[in-house]
């Protein structure tokens, strides 16, 4: 049965290629493209002051690598234009008399920093950098007279360079397994129905559980293969630290596979055509991915959604993967996630088997 399923799957070499190619594409995109680091922000400078002090301030903006000057002008209208066109996302405007106000005491000088809020994330971070640079510049100008009374020292644990790659790539494992298992399982069973071969299976001497196992095991194996592929690439190619126990990860993957396969079976049991199965898979996969913490932090969601995500197996699985990968966490820290996955896996499987039994015999 398992063998037959494999043969059927690989009869269409393009489908087989999809199964292997799409994880690789995702991996490359998430490894290289998806970066939330803010560097070389395109900056437009309007310097009305033309003094050494103003030029020095501009230089300190570029020195740290966060800002890249893409244009200079003496007219504010040019800045407006650059922001409208999106050719600059940050504007620095130094008012006339900046140098004088800097040394005259009193209210002090001001620098106007204009941010393109269209991309709120970039804007927030760039604002922080800009303020830090101006403060440091101010402290330098004030010389020994001003010492900031508090000195913060930051240290990032688990991922000292704060590389977003280390966070993203392990999570790709979860989404790929989910997609592969959901899609292939749901399509395979529906195909039998479409082709009318489900009737044949019904009269065969196979037990229902044997049928289900035969239908799901090949896809579970493909899911695991994809996982091994991604893990290998993550560690060997992207140098993502793997600090935890491999066995623990495998255990989590098996629990998660159960939920994914169960969901796939369930979808196939409520669909009559491959097309319907595909659409349903997409409609289920989308929210699961978006509400998993894969790309968007769960902690920022409204409370109702945060509770809702507890029902999302992908969320628990991602917490386990990231915990094992980056923190080297063990069962003592991760047992709630394991418990949740196991419970959901059993529930979904039970549900799917029941429905499946109804349609197949």
């Amino acid at each position, binding site marked *: 049965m398992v063998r037959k399923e494999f043969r059927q799957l690989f009869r269409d070499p393009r489908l087989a290629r999809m199964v292997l190619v799409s994880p690789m594409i995702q991996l490359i995109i998430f490894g290289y493209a998806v970066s939330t680091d803010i560097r070389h922000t395109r900056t437009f400078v309007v310097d009305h002051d033309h003094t050494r002090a103003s030029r020095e301030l501009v230089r300190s903006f570029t020195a740290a690598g966060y800002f890249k000057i893409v244009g200079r002008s003496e007219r504010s209208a040019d800045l407006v234009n650059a922001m409208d066109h999106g050719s600059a996302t940050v504007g620095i405007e130094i008012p006339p008399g900046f140098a004088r106000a800097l040394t005259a005491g009193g209210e*002090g*000088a*001001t620098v106007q920093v204009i941010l393109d809020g269209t991309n709120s994330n970039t804007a927030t971070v760039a604002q922080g950098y800009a303020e830090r640079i101006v403060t440091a510049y101010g402290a330098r100008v004030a010389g020994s007279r001003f010492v900031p009374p508090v000195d913060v020292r930051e240290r990032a644990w688990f991922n000292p360079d704060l590389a977003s790659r280390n966070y993203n790539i392990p999570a790709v494992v979860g989404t790929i397994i989910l997609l592969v298992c959901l899609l292939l399982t749901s399509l395979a069973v529906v195909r039998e129905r479409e082709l009318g071969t489900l009737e044949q299976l019904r009269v065969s001497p196979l037990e229902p559980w044997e049928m289900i196992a035969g239908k799901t095991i090949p896809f579970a194996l493909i899911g695991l293969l994809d996982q091994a592929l991604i893990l290998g690439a993550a560690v060997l190619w992207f140098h993502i630290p793997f600090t935890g126990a491999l066995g623990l990860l495998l255990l989590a993957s098996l629990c998660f596979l159960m939920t994914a396969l169960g969901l796939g079976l369930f979808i196939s049991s409520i669909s009559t055509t491959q097309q319907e199965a595909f659409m349903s898979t997409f409609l289920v996969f989308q929210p699961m991915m978006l509400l998993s913490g894969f790309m968007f932090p769960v902690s920022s969601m409204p409370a109702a959604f945060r509770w809702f995500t507890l029902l999302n197996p992908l969320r628990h699985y991602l917490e386990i993967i990231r915990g094992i990968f980056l923190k080297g966490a063990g069962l003592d820290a991760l047992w709630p996630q394991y418990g949740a996955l196991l419970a959901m896996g059993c529930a979904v499987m039970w549900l799917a088997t029941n429905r499946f039994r109804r349609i197949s015999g």
Partner: protein
Amino acid sequence: MGRSGPGLNRGRLLAIARKELLQLRRDRRSMWMAFVLPLLLVVMFGYAITWDVNNIPLAAVDLDGTARSRELVDAFRASGYFTVAARPARVREVEPLMDRGKVRVALVIPRGFAADLGAGRTAPLQVLLDGSDANTATIAMGYTQGIVRSYSNRVALRASGMRLPVATRSRVWFNQELASRNMIVPGLIPVIMMIIAAMLTSLTIAREWERGTMEQLASTPVHRLEVVLGKLLPYLCIGIADVVLASVVGVLLFHVPFRGNAALLMVLATAFLVGALGLGMFISAVARSQVLATQMAMVATFLPAFLLSGFMFSIDVMPAPLQAISLLVPARYFLVVTRGIFLKGVGVHVLLLQGLLMLAFAAAGLALATRAFRKELR
């Protein structure tokens, strides 16, 4: 193919459109997909999903226990970015909290903090971040620095009346409250349209093949462009309805500003849709099976539109090869259009380049679909 005369016959075109519409009405789940998926995505992104990082769980390790140190912890809480989730008595207790993900940031105020400040010495402060979530950690670091800096300046001003000689006045344009919703909702329109358009049409030709109706179509005296346009028309209507739906929900439910010209948005959306629908049809003709076609459509449209369009991840920081690929992602240009029209209120003069590229995309989509179709008929 020399059967049909030059020029398009409107009657034949509409007949094909009607037939396609009938078929579409029978395909209930595709219709679901066409209207429910955009709504689902807009509502989810508008409501639940945000790049804004707030309510970061913080562990306050106050080893000083003075009025000064409590004041600093209060400054963190008052900022709204952090919630104090734990108050461990020792630094050692921070690690298990971070392992379990109970806290993401720990603020360690050493003993003697108030004494240092009082004596005019620089008081050290330690902040530990959970770097496993690099995005949250980077933003949290920025917030921390802002809060400590303003606290520090307040202390300095109180102590010596001295202030820094220069101050920053930040102003945010286009999205004053820096709500990620305002950037996400207009950005979703290109992404949704790309997926839906390509997926819906990716079925059309493959379906004819699977049902064996392709021969029938081939034997009727229709021009191939008539077939392509006729098949496109119903989906174009759905696509435009989706754009309107997403925009209305964004503006009415989520109060996303709409500052530009709606007519311009519709014109450019139409061009974009024609291109995407044509691309889907091309995929459909190449794949020949519905299942393969939808999957190819997903890989060819969904992933690039989602990840390489600048929807969520800034193209500026991508490596050069990926930046080059993103030039071929039409959603990238349409994204500039939707955000420009929604948030910046810019007009044709600013969006001219994007508009032309979109028209080119439409022409390319139609050409690809027509060509692929001709090959099929032979």
